[in-house]
């Protein structure tokens, strides 16, 4: 197993630049998830690491060795594809054994490795079947089996769960996390699903427009999003972003006036803003409570999920607002509601979308 370092990776397709100077240091045995909207370059970055795509510039270093120009096999990586990429004419056994046949391993060694992989992935009784006879989850496991027989240094996953239905996806998430623990391997996982990222990752790389927005642990991203993009990408339902203006600045924080006139003193780093600046205040839906004074919201749509009631409405001059309230809260569509928010739970983003660091939020140990 090994560390994976990316050093100023850039990639252009013709005149279109899709990756801009990406540098990441991924630790040994770490589970890192690349997450971002479609077209952010996450799959391209993974394919560059795999050696399927050549970087326009930059270095890829695996286990201290520069492999930028090496063949995928010599990089010590293996990859699981979104479509599984199983060979339909070969049995499960032959699919898993494929990389070993390429290596011309002797039969006994090959058989023991295939059997071991099959045992880990509970495929022992499926080895003689063809991929077409398997369910989606089983096919996924065969694809993983093919990637583990070679004992690679780094595993790469390209949206491996996106073809599965929701229930199976949840199960496979747990299985993949267990597999990571069992194999004790460095894994890089690409997804557009922030839930997969939050639940499985040791650390998450949020990509947007070919740039790294933030690289950190899931809770770091949740509590201290570096940018507005990360803030709105991580967390379900999405963070509310309310236009506001700075009404006062002092050492303890910033006084903001929200759209609609409500004023709040927020304990955030205040050195980069001044009176009258336009900012946006981020409030997570789960951080609001029903109260007597605070934000006035007119409720448009109410989704009762049982445990929580997701309430959609507007505040001020039509800014949309979403709140996650207790399941049996006394709310009705078409009524007004007053919500209160603890100032320490609010995020403030400047006009560039960069965060003013919260002073009261839990500090994350790196």
């Amino acid at each position, binding site marked *: 197993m090994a560390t994976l370092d990316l050093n100023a990776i850039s990639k252009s397709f013709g005149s279109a630049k899709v990756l801009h100077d990406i540098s990441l240091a991924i630790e040994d045995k770490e589970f890192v998830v690349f997450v971002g909207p479609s077209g952010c370059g996450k799959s391209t970055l993974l394919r560059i690491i795999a050696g399927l795509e050549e970087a326009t510039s930059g270095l890829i270093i695996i286990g201290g060795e520069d492999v930028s120009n090496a063949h995928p096999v010599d990089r010590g990586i293996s*990859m699981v594809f979104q479509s599984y990429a199983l060979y*339909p004419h070969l049995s499960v056994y032959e699919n898993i054994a494929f990389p070993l046949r*390429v290596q011309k391993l002797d039969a006994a060694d090959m058989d023991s490795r295939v059997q071991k992989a099959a045992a880990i992935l509970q495929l022992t009784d499926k080895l003689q079947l063809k991929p077409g006879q398997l369910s989606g989850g089983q096919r996924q496991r065969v694809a993983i089996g093919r990637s583990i027989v070679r004992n690679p240094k780094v595993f790469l996953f390209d949206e491996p769960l996106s073809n599965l239905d929701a229930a199976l996806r949840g199960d496979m998430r747990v299985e993949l996390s267990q597999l990571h623990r069992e194999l004790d391997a460095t894994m890089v996982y690409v997804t557009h699903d922030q839930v997969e990222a939050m639940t499985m990752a040791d650390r998450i790389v949020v990509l947007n427009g070919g740039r790294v927005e933030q690289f950190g642990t899931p809770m770091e991203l949740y509590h201290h999003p570096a940018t507005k993009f990360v803030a709105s990408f991580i967390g379900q339902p999405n963070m509310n972003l309310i236009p506001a203006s700075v009404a006062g600045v002092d050492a303890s924080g910033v006084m903001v006036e929200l759209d609609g006139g409500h004023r709040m003193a927020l304990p955030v780093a205040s050195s980069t803003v001044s009176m009258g600046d336009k900012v946006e205040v981020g409030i997570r839906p789960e951080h609001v409570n029903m109260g007597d004074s605070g934000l006035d919201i007119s409720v448009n749509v109410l989704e009762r999920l049982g445990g929580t009631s997701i309430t959609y409405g507007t505040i001020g001059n039509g800014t949309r607002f979403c709140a996650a309230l207790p399941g049996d809260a006394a709310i009705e569509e078409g009524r007004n509601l007053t919500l209160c928010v603890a100032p320490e739970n609010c995020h403030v983003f400047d006009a560039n979308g960069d965060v003013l660091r919260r002073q009261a939020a839990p500090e994350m140990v790196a």
Partner: protein
Amino acid sequence: MMDRYTKLQIVGIYACLAIFLTFILLPFFEMFMASLRPLEHLFRSPYQFWSDDFSFDAYKQMWVTVPLLGRYIFNSIYISFMVTGLTMIFVVPAAYAFARLQFPFKNATLGIFLGVNMFTGAVLLIPLYRVLRTLGLLNTYWAMIVPGVAFLIPTGIWLLRSYLEKIPRELEEAAFVDGASRLYTLRRVVLPLATPGLIVVGVAVFIGAYAQQFLFAITFNQTRELQPLPAGLYEFIGYQSVTWNEMMAAALVGVLPVMIIFLFLQKYLVAGLTAGAVKE
């Protein structure tokens, strides 16, 4: 359901099929009817559709009239198989290259291949004759095989290329990541998946080879023993009379082995081998 038709539509479809099939099959039927009649009855007027003097005598007599008939049938099949085999050897790597690799003038080359297809062999007979004479291939099997292969390669490439392009690229990428070379991937992954396509192309080439050998045979070959069936049928045209019934019988017998092969291959033509490769 997309494929649900009303009664009227079904009747219409079958009517169209019947007209089409009549058009295609009537000559074969007439060939068969002609082969069953004594020669003098073929010129009987008025024409009788049905008569009670049908017999299989022509099928016996034809081997006597043209003693080399068996040899001609064998030659036909031999030449077609050789042409098909050689063509596939060239077409498979070429089609794969056109389907997957990037190289300069790729589209231009494909265009030229299509352009070559526009010429029939007949236009190029004289230059081809000179080439074959220079190479010393006249009056050998090669005189009929080499031009056949040359004219069928473009069609083969176009047909197989479009089939290979349908094979998911991720399968090859997976093999590449696992360390397989292009050739290994072609042999172990691409060609097994392309089997239905290979059979389709093989059949198309075989039919092409069977159809075009007549022209090359009468132009480039004077050796009687090497003639294929279409050229050999000329021997039924005698000085005094043409034994039409025997010629029809011989033509039917000559086509028979090929028809039997296709009956067996037919199921492969419709086999969907890629099921389960990629989730739809």
